[in-house]
């Protein structure tokens, strides 16, 4: 008896510890792999909208090279020298001796590829915002309907349909979105078929059933007597939902929103089909752009060097981002909960 108790405790404890270990090791792994990019681009990465862009910088000639050059080509004129001075600053920032491979010795032009995460970061944030703005009110409506309003004969079938929808793999949402939904969105809002808006809406539709199902379950935990005592005070259905059910189920509802948010932030397949995969800050909601998970999925295969560490930098940003959002949501909404 005591022994079982002991084993049970140990198992429970190690399972809990395992989660922490996985979490920290992911964090550390991401950070280490992203470190070259973090060191190279710093926080500027977050606001730089260039991705995989080759820039040329001239590096100052060493004394020996200048001499050699002067003797070789007398025709070389002053303007070249001026340029050298102009680029001197950039070079200080970007250039380092290690990347000597890229320096063309004959011209002293150093080519470098720079990576900035601004576009996918903005794409991720905006598509997630659209998805949440679209899905939260509808999911709450569905949940209230299922928990409080629907007649008995509808509760089961609609509930089942919602759960089935929640179980559909995201790639199917992507395909459906691409072939059926995107043209509709384009007809209504104009712009291009594959766009931030299409991706955001399909993302919203995708997380909708999930959010609705969990919210409904949370609402269903409100004890009948509690609702009855509100009705017994003369409350209407709407007032009971607003004053009793929502506050009572608050924790579960916020949990469902947070989980859905996490899903939307990290969703890859559906978004890859729909967002357009264009590295451009979207001029409007109906322009194509790209999101972090899509960048990662599209580029990991052939990435190396700076690109690889930049991808890890993006992944790291996504990780920290999710962490902050979830952490602050928990802190803000659930404080003072007993």
């Amino acid at each position, binding site marked *: 008896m005591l022994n079982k108790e002991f084993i049970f405790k140990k198992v429970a404890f190690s399972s809990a510890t395992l989660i922490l270990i996985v979490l920290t090791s992911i964090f550390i792994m991401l950070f280490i792999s992203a470190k070259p990019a973090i060191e190279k681009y710093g926080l500027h990465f977050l606001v730089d909208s260039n991705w995989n862009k080759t820039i040329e910088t001239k590096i100052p000639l060493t004394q020996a090279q200048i001499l050699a050059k002067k003797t070789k080509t007398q025709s070389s004129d002053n303007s070249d020298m001026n340029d050298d001075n102009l680029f001197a600053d950039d070079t200080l920032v970007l250039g380092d001796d290690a990347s000597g491979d890229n320096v063309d010795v004959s011209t002293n032009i150093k080519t470098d590829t720079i990576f900035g995460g601004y576009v996918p970061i903005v794409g991720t944030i905006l598509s997630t915002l659209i998805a949440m703005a679209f899905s939260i009110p509808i999911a709450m409506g569905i949940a209230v309907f299922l928990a409080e309003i629907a007649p008995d004969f509808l509760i089961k079938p609609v509930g089942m349909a919602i759960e089935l929808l929640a179980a559909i793999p995201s790639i199917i949402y992507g395909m459906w979105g691409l072939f059926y939904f995107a043209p509709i969105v384009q007809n209504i809002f104009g712009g291009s078929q594959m766009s931030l808006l299409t991706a955001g809406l399909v993302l919203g539709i995708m997380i909708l059933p999930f959010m609705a199902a969990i919210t409904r379950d949370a609402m269903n935990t409100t004890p009948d*007597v*509690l609702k009855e005592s509100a009705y*017994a*005070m*003369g*409350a209407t259905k709407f007032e009971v939902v607003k004053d009793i059910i929502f*506050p009572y189920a608050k924790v579960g509802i916020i949990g469902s929103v947070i989980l859905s948010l996490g899903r939307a932030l990290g969703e890859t397949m559906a978004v890859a089909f729909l967002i357009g995969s264009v590295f451009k800050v979207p001029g409007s909601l109906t322009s194509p752009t790209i999101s972090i998970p899509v960048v990662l999925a599209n580029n990991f295969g052939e990435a190396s060097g700076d690109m690889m560490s930049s991808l890890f930098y993006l992944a790291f940003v996504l990780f920290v981002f999710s962490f902050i959002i979830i952490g602050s949501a928990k802190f803000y909404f659930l404080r003072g909960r*007993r």
Partner: protein
Amino acid sequence: MAKELIMDIKDFSFKYAGAPKPSLENINMPVYKNKITAMIGPSGCGKSTLLRSINRIHDLYPNNEYTGKINLLNIQSDEFENILDIKKENDFIRLRQRVGMIFQKPTPFPMSIYDNVAYGLRLDGVKDKKVLDEKVETALRGAAIWDECKDRLKESAMGMSGGQQQRLCIARAVALKPEVILFDEPTSALDPISTKAIEELISELKKDISIVIVTHNMQQASRLSDYTAFMYIGELIEYNKTDKIFLNPKEKLTEDYITGRFG
């Protein structure tokens, strides 16, 4: 003392949706004004079902069937109205403001102590902060809980003890100045001290309010009530003044029950 009726239940039968047979059959029972009427009987005999019919809480759930009449005195017109005729939501709300209900387990709303008591008043359209403050205080005093919670009105009601929560629920009901309050085993989840406080409170309340209380506690019924109804398997077996029921029951079943021979 002249017996004044506030309620009169006539040939009332009730069947739950989908139940094979009625849970209540042909109940006839008066409820006297400013008196305490106790309902006793073994578990499952239909006490809660009857109580919940009186403010039509049953109607939150579809397809229950009932026949008969439950007449409630309209104080303004001094006439009886059958509450089973009510169909409009507004009239339901009005009925439930007139006939309050306290449940077995305390049911504080997930909000502050103050807001709990103010809840029904606000629903009723009271907005003036001063009026609200006053009514909340009166109600809390009326429920003998003012002293305990006057310094923590803004705190969540979930943090009170069970007994305090139950008195808060009573305050909440009292705040609406109902004509009748229905109590469904209000003390069965409480310790003896809280139970005593609630019992005193109920006796106090009957000055202004008529009371129907379901209880499993024979002492409570005999201590507290003026009239007692004994129910058994969906029927009202015996109804009389409480001392008659306890000292001199007419029916064998009643006697067996109150002497603890079954139940």
